[in-house]
């Protein structure tokens, strides 16, 4: 699979990573090489195989739907790069 610049730009937008225009072409070449390599999986016949969803055979545990932790607002806000009062802040999203 060969990726073009437009595809890399689209994927970068999906991944929310700003990629400068000048980096698109080298990145496309690099990613294409990796994709070509991983396409060797097409040699494997998997027509009768179920995809592996979990590593260890165990049932997903259930627990009571109750609050087990919390009341730690200030602890959590301490790491915010730009907290104001008791809130996380972001650039204005509604005009």
């Amino acid at each position, binding site marked *: 699979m060969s990726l073009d610049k437009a595809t890399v730009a689209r994927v970068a937008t999906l991944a929310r990573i700003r990629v400068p225009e000048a980096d698109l072409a080298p990145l496309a070449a690099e990613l294409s090489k990796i994709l070509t390599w991983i396409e060797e*999986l097409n040699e494997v016949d998997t027509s009768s195989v179920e995809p592996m969803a979990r590593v260890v055979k165990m049932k997903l545990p259930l627990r009571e739907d109750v609050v087990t932790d919390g009341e730690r607002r200030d602890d959590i806000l301490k790491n915010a790069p730009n907290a104001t009062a008791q809130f996380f802040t972001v650039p204005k999203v509604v005009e």
Partner: protein
Amino acid sequence: MTALTDLTLAEARDQLRAKQISAVELADAHIRAVERIRPLNAFITETLDLARERAKLADKRLAEGKAGALEGIPLAIKDLFCTEGVLTTAASHILKGFHPPYESTVTANLKRAGAVMLGKTNLDEFAMGSSNMTSHYGPVESPWRRQGDNRPLVPGGSSGGSAAAVAARACLAATGTDTGGSIRQPAAFCGIVGLKPTYGRCSRWGIVAFASSLDQAGPMTRSVKDAAIMLGAMAGHDPKDSTSAEEPVPDFAASLIGDIRGLRIGVPQEYRLEGTNPEVLALWDQGIEWAKEAGAEVVDVSLPHTKYALATYYIVAPAEASANLARYDGVRFGLRVPGKSLEEMYELTRAEGFGAEVKRRVLIGTYVLSAGYYDAYYLKAQKVRALIARDFDQAFQKVDLLLTPTAPTPSFAVGEKMDDPIAMYLNDVFTVPASLAGLPAISIPAGLARDGLPLGLQLIGRAFDESTVLRAAGVLETLAHFTEQPDLAGRLAETRA
């Protein structure tokens, strides 16, 4: 008398309990060692004052007869484990200044057992790498060098800082995490023991996530017995990790009976890869001879889908990483780069916060999960992964363990293999298959290459059968009798008299 930093964890534990040494003097010796090895850049954050305090507490508990399993044992913690109030970076710029308000389950278990944390060790950014070259905090230098060659070498990765610190005797043991070989490969490169437990054995809660279906924490030590003791203290069911197994934790050290007579050890023929270093293959043959000598029955086995393991891994791991790393958005913790809009802030923060390898993997992961490509890549990889796991299931109907090399080459020089990501990925060719199948695997130091660099052998076991893995590793360790140490002369920091 043996220097305090040359003791094994087991010896130090016994001497502490017998009051022959104190936790404070043991901690002080290791604090000096941490300071001396600063030129290796093995630690991102040192917590030496904390260590002194913890050691005093440990002496008190020892005196009161309330000692935990690791009371007073100085450890290094990979900087992927969240530690309450102590900077946790994952070696990424994007976690700038992050002081977790909570403690990971594994480090909490170690703390409760009385361990003394010396600091947080360097790693590849978000554990993505096999050389420690991708850390935002600079590469780690291996304590080892080739004979007659002064070029700095990589310690392997991603748990390279942990491996270097253990090998350079700056701690008695360290934690690592392994997603595709990140405990075993650096252990092999640095001449130490590294154990990746069964997926689900150690809680992943509070470990910065890379690929959730593969990540597993484990011990890095200077002996197999130490690995058994460390694993016992790290492991256990944790309701906070829904993939944590409700398996009883056996006394792993008790499994080291020094006897593997009658054990069936398989040698997977597909691991005889072209291009593997001949010295690595020779050591593997030597390992097979040791196993026979010890009375094990060695048989050839086939793991037919081995050659597809790396490609499978490089779909599954980046896919999971792209999802896990979505949380780094500049809003709640870490780095923020201002933008005019919310979208722009996200994009600029992630562009500046992630390094080149992390970006590469997030982009690959995003692509293989994107509409129209999901079935062709991700679903296909999950199917091949099922076949790889089935290969192991079938092999383990015939044998109890598998014996392989850990890595296809010894350590390499800083800067080598950096131009071609795929050449770097090949480091994990022998370790990735067991990761995909979730199986326990250990690397033990087994010999030196001609240029004087350590080489490792890997033993892979059945799920939750770390006991048999450790038992055989103990026997091979005795027969290999690896006592070589890196020569750090001329590379240590000046210390105050």
